[in-house]
């Protein structure tokens, strides 16, 4: 495995499978235990470097690191030296001087984790950079699919919504393709990126046509700031054409599942009754996030530092 996890393409099929298998073993080992803590990363330091607001991803990484007994330092841009104008590089050098073994970074600028990886000796894990990638989200999604459906090879995954601005979609297309799944993107033409034709995925504009051929439907969050930026005429129209409601859910094959990376807008891209149905894996995804990130931290930080 590579030393950093910056994008889905850093994982080949064997690496990705190793992460998922490791997460499954960790899950099984910790199930029903009173002491949900392992000594594996004792004495290692993980810095959560968050330049963008995030609740679930930061907490998930923090919990993952703590369950492996690493020391965790949370650094958020607000109320830190960043608000005094410190550059990413200077912050990185500071962390380096303090001896961070791993840096988990979220940044609004695509590519920030790549830059960071050149400045620090520890492993860098991308926890979301701009509209680029969010590889651990893709790993936990793949883990959830495999857990529910028992396989990834040949699974038909339909990703619906704002693909243009979605790092979750980008990472998922890459990773799911690596793992042998068949990905279809469904979105209004204005919310598909230029060059989507070269992605390893089918592209469609009609959700109703895609649903009967989907084993997994992954709904992307409609980001509030996009609603007013003329990417689509109105929230109601978006919801009618691309929202997943009970009627559309009924068109899915019997064992199909519904996923959402969260936080979701109930009533917008996903109806409340769909989000709360037995097909929905939204709560499992959160739980799986912790074990998947434990697997990533173990595999990146557990061994010798080069």
């Amino acid at each position: 495995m590579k030393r950093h996890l910056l994008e889905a393409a850093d994982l080949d099929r064997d690496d990705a499978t190793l992460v998922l298998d490791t997460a499954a073993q960790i899950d099984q080992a910790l199930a029903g235990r009173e002491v949900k803590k392992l000594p594996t990363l004792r004495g290692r330091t993980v810095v959560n470097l968050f330049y963008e607001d995030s609740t679930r991803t930061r907490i998930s990484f923090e919990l993952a690191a703590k369950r492996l007994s690493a020391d965790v330092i949370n650094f958020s841009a607000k109320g830190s030296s960043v608000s005094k104008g410190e550059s990413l590089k200077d912050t990185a050098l500071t962390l380096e001087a303090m001896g961070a073994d791993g840096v988990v970074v979220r940044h609004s600028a695509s590519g920030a984790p790549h830059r960071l990886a050149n400045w620090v000796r520890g492993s860098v894990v991308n926890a979301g950079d701009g509209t680029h990638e969010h590889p651990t989200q893709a790993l936990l999604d793949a883990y959830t699919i495999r857990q529910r459906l028992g396989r990834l090879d040949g699974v038909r995954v339909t990703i619906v919504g704002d693909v243009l601005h979605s790092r979750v979609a980008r990472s998922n297309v890459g990773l799911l393709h690596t793992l042998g799944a068949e990905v279809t993107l469904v979105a209004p033409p204005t919310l598909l990126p230029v060059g989507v034709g070269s992605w390893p995925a089918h592209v469609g504009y009609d959700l109703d046509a895609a649903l009967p051929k989907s084993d997994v439907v992954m709904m992307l969050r409609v980001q509030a700031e996009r609603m007013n930026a003329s990417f689509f005429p109105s929230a109601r129209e978006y919801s009618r054409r691309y929202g997943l409601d009970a009627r559309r859910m009924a068109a899915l094959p019997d064992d199909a599942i519904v996923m959402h990376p969260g936080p979701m807008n109930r009533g917008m891209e996903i109806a409340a009754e769909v989000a709360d149905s037995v097909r929905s894996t939204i709560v499992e995804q959160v739980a799986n996030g912790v074990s998947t990130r434990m697997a990533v931290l173990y595999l990146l930080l557990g061994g010798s530092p080069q």
Partner: protein
Amino acid sequence: MARSPDPARSTPPGSAPGTLLSSADVARVVDRMAHQLIERAASLRPDDGSDQADGGLADLVLVGIPTRGAPLARRLAARIEAFTGVAVDVGTADITLYRDDLRLRGVRALEPTVLPDDGIDGRLVVLVDDVLFSGRSVRAALDALRDLGRPRSVQLAVLVDRGHRELPIRADFVGKNVPTSRAQQVRVHLAEVDGVDEVLVTERDAE
């Protein structure tokens, strides 16, 4: 066959390379260990008056250390059942995440950790492994057990004790004591994993 290894015997030059135990030898050794476990379970049964009929075996849990400790534990349980008619609980505890040599030897894939439904609290746990060498795997297994519950007693059963301990750990049940030099390797092959039952001593040159 000595119960505990004599330090003077486990120093170089070691055993001659070759097959130490054949398939029939492994079966015989496993049978003997199963009998010893039955006796031990009887002598260590809880004195609360319960479960007297099964000779304390209901209290026993065999916990295999992957990779080869796991099938070994299942075999011991099968032999105990064949001798007594009592089905003994079996589990596996992966110790990878508890090892102290990950930094030296790098990370590796994990194996399953599965405990019986009743857990291990208050029970007689016997850790089962194929080879006892430095004792570091056993130390890691003891740490893992501490997180998994609180057994009444923990004992250790190994198919082969090859000496060279680096920690104050000894086995309670030993299939065979084998004097080796540090340069040698002891390889246990089990049908479940390797397709054949045998124990080999080789000079370390493969790695």
